[in-house]
């Protein structure tokens, strides 16, 4: 600030009152500004992490009440696997493991379909030249912004109407199950895969494909030998994002699942919503640790690919 004044009026040494006032305001803002940024940021990090860390710590606490630390225990973890969650009568370990299996079936299927379809449309949008690209673009953008509750209820009604129609005209009975859940998950996953794969494609040098083309490779060969190896990290990242979103999803799954096809997130939702117990803390910790391991794997895979 002193420098500024010197540049402006090199001949003057005395400051006017107005300039002094501005100087003080400036110093005050500088001081409080940097302190505020520090304080708010540290508070922000604590806010983001305190609930997670406390949840993990207290899942090992040898006490049913959450307010005091009474020593380390793995009791709550073993309880989960012995059909006990607090006073919850409906809980059973085998049902939980079954729902985990359902989650994996849905997650893997939805991820594969969404990754293939999403990569195809990403290629089409980045490399292709045809009319109507903007429309496809905006259709792909919509699942990212339309609230999931709207997507869920609209798809549920669509399936209900379709099944009703099938029953009346064809005499076929069908109801919600794995196919309907997978269809719903693919709807929101395609867009995420496109965002990730597209970014990777945009970074790639299109000259390489032109060169392959000039050297006589057909589009199929060009794709598998040139394009694909370069966008693999993007495809893996997109697939992992899709898989994570699929495992975490509650709303879409709730509206598209039928009896016997409950996923883990839908299964634990009722528990997590209505009760608080150390076993649920332990179960939550397990779910979190699994997702953190998955991110670690994906980070490692992407780093190796670079």
């Amino acid at each position, binding site marked *: *600030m002193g420098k*500024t004044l010197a*540049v*402006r009026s090199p001949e003057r040494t005395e400051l006017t009152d107005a300039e002094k006032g501005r100087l003080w*305001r400036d110093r005050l803002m500088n001081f409080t*500004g940097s302190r*505020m940024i520090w304080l*708010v940021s540290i508070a922000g*990090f604590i*806010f*983001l992490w*305190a*609930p*997670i860390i*406390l*949840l993990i710590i*207290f899942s090992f606490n040898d006490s049913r*009440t*959450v*307010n*005091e630390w009474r020593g380390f225990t793995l009791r709550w973890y073993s309880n989960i696997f012995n059909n006990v969650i607090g006073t919850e009568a409906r809980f059973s370990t085998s049902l939980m493991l079954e729902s985990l299996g359902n989650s994996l079936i849905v997650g893997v299927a939805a991820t594969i379909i969404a990754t*293939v*379809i999403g990569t*195809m*449309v990403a*290629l*089409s*949008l980045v490399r*292709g*030249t*045809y009319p109507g690209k903007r429309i*496809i673009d905006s*259709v*792909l953008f919509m699942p990212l*912004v*339309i*609230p999931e*509750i*709207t*997507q869920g*209820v609209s*798809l549920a009604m*669509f399936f209900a109407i379709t099944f009703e129609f099938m029953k009346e005209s064809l005499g076929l009975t069908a109801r919600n199950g794995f196919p309907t859940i997978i269809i*719903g998950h*693919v*709807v929101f996953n*395609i867009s995420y895969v496109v965002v990730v794969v597209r970014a990777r494609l945009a970074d790639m040098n299109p000259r390489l494909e032109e060169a392959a*083309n000039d050297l006589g490779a057909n*589009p199929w060969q060009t794709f598998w030998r040139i394009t694909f190896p370069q966008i693999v990290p993007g495809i893996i990242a997109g697939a992992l994002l899709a898989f*994570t979103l699929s495992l*975490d999803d*509650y709303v879409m799954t709730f*509206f598209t699942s039928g009896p016997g096809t409950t996923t883990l997130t839908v299964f634990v*939702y009722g528990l*997590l*919503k209505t009760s*608080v117990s150390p076993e649920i803390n332990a179960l*939550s910790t397990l*779910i979190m640790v699994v997702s953190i391991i998955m*991110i670690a794997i994906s980070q490692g895979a992407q780093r190796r690919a670079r």
Partner: protein
Amino acid sequence: MAIRLSARSVASGASQDARGKLGSFLLAVPAIAWLGLFFILPLIIVLIISFLTRGSGGSVALPLTTAAYERVFDVFSPVLLRSIRIAAVTTVICLLVGFPMAYFIKTRKRAWVRSVAMFLVVLPFWTNFIVRMYAWRVLLGPEGWINGVLMNFGLISEPIPMLYNEFAVLVGLVYGFLPFMVLPIYSSVERFDFRFVEAAHDLGANNWHTFWRVFLPLVLPGIIAGCILVFIPSIGAYVVPDMLGGTSGLMIGNLIQNQFRGSGGNLPLGSALSIVLMAIVMLSLLVYAYFGDKD
């Protein structure tokens, strides 16, 4: 020879071009078909049902009417307004916390500190959303950690009701969507050339003016993107108010879900609520298209 070769390659190039155009369009077909059938068509069904009348046993019937919309703006306007208010306050809080965080992370000198800090912001986003909301139920509950600590220190004699109200919903939404604010602001602060600050100082601007006239306008696209990314999922939130809100923290999403509960539901009303929710989202996107990032 040379001429013949080039003529042939031109001809084959042209046909290859046409084939390439068709081929690249065909690549988009599965995605268009999937989204057209399972996303656009269901939304059209919702739009149609929103103009129908509620039938017996949770079904729908003719005639066409706007009664559902009238009810949305009449009976349910308090919930509508509350949802907009909650989403707006969430956005403002996220901005007030997220902007300093993004600036703080960007201005760290060591690269590893920056990447660890970014990792700390992003990692919670990758962990299960419902589990994170459960953590807040444990924290905020009447027998939760916060009340427990306050009572142990004798600061309060009775637990403060922090769960199952608007406050809890706000905490949950800010917690869930704060990373969406930090990330776009961070990337626009990253693109900001800090030599502009020096230039502004050299030209006689003080910090106050440099911040408002140089820094802020240049990072504004990131701020607007962040606000949209927080506002849209907040206005459509279902899980957060369902887990933390109770009856006094009810939002549009919960109302919609209530209308689809089998025979007790009201499909036209639920559909109309969905359409209104979508309209709010579209409006906020228009605001973004107008003020936001032009690339």
